[in-house]
């Protein structure tokens, strides 16, 4: 179905349809995209995708409330299952979770102040059909497991707002193990309030008929910490774009990712950290292993504003290319307007170290096993500080990936 038909026929199915401001914005976006009124050559949000890829889909969505659950595993552990972007409304002394209603429009509009100049986010706004408001209350110490489930042929355009209140400590595990053919354009707006510490682990492991466009925009207030680790073992298309605004002094953000690609899979990544206050720390590190004809890109950006003195900001990307046919494009960028900073960026992409392979083989290790050892070592340091169950899960996924690709 064409982009035009999708927009016109289904316009009544989107959320916040009664709001004139949003309706006008949707119209504007439609016109911009329809008339191709943007610089598509210099638009990082379109790396490895085209407008045709984005706009050619069969819009299909129904709000189904059955299946979504909130399970309290113990006093501090929750498992929350979202079905087609819908949650079960729930509140207790630790958390509040509910689906967006028309009354939440102000929240939606306020969070939209951050203009990301991103066509995928524009699509999210145009076709928005679901949204969830999470509120993690102050001074709590929680583990939350989020499971996303999408039905066959569904197109999810979801905008979630997560508010981590003051001084909470949360380990958020976000699971995208999608098995049905679907399109998932999910946008997170995350607010980390003063003194909160958040560890956000995102697992992406789904079949090849799925597409996931995951965007997050996080604001960190004073003394807060946001650490995001993305692990992508998917067969389908994945786009991970993650942005952080360090707005409060002594806040820090880590955006890290690992991806493991094969066949003709594509993974498009971007991280962007804005230092807007003094004494903040950031680290952006993405690593990837690519086989067959797979393709990946990674843009990283550190922006240090004039008043963000005593900033530390680091960027690194590493890639292993297992064939001559795969490719990994990496572009690190630093824009610094303060003078008392420590910043660096680096990128290394290449085949498996032949010397290391030779050394291991001279000790009787087969070529395939040696290859597995070297690739495993590539993310070994990233597994060191993870909880055992998460590290085990990644090791299992990695082992499956290695088994599928290495031949003697």
């Amino acid at each position: 179905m064409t982009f035009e038909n999708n927009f016109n026929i289904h316009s009544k199915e989107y959320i916040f349809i009664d709001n004139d401001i949003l309706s006008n914005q949707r119209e504007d976006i439609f016109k911009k995209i329809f008339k191709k009124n943007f610089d598509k050559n210099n638009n990082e949000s379109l790396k490895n995708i085209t407008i045709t890829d984005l706009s050619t889909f069969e819009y299909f969505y129904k709000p189904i409330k059955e299946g979504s659950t909130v399970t309290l595993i113990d006093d501090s552990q929750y498992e929350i299952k979202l079905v087609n972007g819908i949650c079960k409304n729930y509140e207790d002394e630790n958390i509040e979770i509910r689906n967006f209603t028309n009354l939440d429009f102000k929240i939606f509009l306020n969070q939209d102040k951050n203009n990301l100049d991103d066509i995928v986010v524009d699509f999210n706004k145009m076709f928005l059909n679901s949204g969830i408001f999470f509120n993690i209350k102050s001074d709590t110490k929680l583990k939350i497991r989020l499971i996303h489930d999408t039905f066959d042929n569904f197109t999810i355009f979801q905008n979630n707002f997560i508010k981590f209140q003051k001084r909470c400590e949360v380990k958020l595990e976000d699971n995208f193990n999608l098995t049905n053919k679907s399109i998932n354009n999910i946008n997170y707006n995350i607010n980390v309030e003063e003194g909160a510490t958040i560890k956000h682990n995102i697992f992406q492991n789904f079949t090849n008929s799925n597409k996931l466009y995951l965007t997050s925009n996080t604001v960190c207030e004073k003394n807060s910490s946001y650490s995001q680790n993305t692990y992508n073992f998917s067969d389908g298309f994945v786009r991970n774009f993650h942005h952080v605004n360090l707005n409060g002094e002594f806040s820090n953000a880590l955006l890290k990712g690992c991806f493991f690609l094969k066949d003709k899979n594509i993974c498009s990544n971007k991280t962007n950290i804005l230092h807007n206050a003094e004494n903040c720390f950031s680290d952006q590190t993405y690593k990837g292993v690519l086989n067959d004809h797979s393709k990946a890109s990674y843009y990283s950006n550190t922006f240090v504003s004039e008043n963000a003195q005593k900033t530390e900001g680091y960027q690194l990307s590493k890639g292993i290319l297992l064939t001559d046919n795969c490719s990994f494009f990496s572009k690190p960028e630093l824009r610094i307007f303060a003078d008392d900073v420590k910043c660096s960026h680096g990128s290394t992409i290449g085949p498996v170290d032949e010397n290391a392979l030779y050394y291991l083989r001279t000790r009787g290790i087969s070529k395939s096993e040696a290859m597995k050892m070297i690739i495993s070592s590539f993310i070994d340091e990233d597994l060191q500080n993870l909880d055992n169950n998460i590290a085990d899960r990644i090791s299992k996924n990695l082992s499956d990936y290695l088994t599928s690709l290495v031949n003697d």
Partner: protein
Amino acid sequence: MIFLNINNLNVSIEGKQILNNFNITINQGEVHAIMGPNGCGKSTLANVLAGNEDYEVNSGKIIFKDEDLLDLNIEQRAQKGLFLAFQYPVEIPGVNITPFLHASINSKLKNEKKPELDNLSFAKLLRKNAEELDISSDMLKRSINTGFSGGEKKRYEILQMSILNPELTIFDETDSGLDVDALKIVTEGINKFKNPKKSYLIITHYQKLLDYIHPDHVHVMRNGKIVKSGDISLATEIEASGYQNF
């Protein structure tokens, strides 16, 4: 049994001839030293024996334990009992020493159709051999050669040799980059695991190493071939007057 016989070996890399009709025979239990100036082909010989695929063997034969070594790939040669102690051991961050060595010994045992070592038996063997080489248990928790000093790297090579228990060990300029004390520690380690059934091929520039490990035969190599063979006195002669007389 022919233990090691290299016959008229010609080897090149990127079209450049390195070994020219190279010949040597090493019997079981013998210690041979090959000395030669830079660029004469010593390290090429070591790498060709280990199976390095960067080199092209143009002609010649290498028989090891009655089998054509050139028919075997790198790991098969190691499993058959050949061990190369590297001049510059490779750092491999993230690959832990202990599971790596465990996998190595088990691949060899599996090839020999012997029972593989379980975790406990391997840990005991590793600890015992590491103690003999004065290697701390902390070092065994680290990644292969990562952050090691030159001496530690060479000692770790000897530890690997002691675990894998090869019949032929090639020391490729093991003395390079070592100070006198480190050289002594490493050679003491080698001597600890010396055994009449094992053979050694020591590649070196200098006599110093041979003061600690006494070879049965010393060969001088120039332009890709052995130009003179003799006993330890040959090493003394080289030390006194260099390689220009050969």
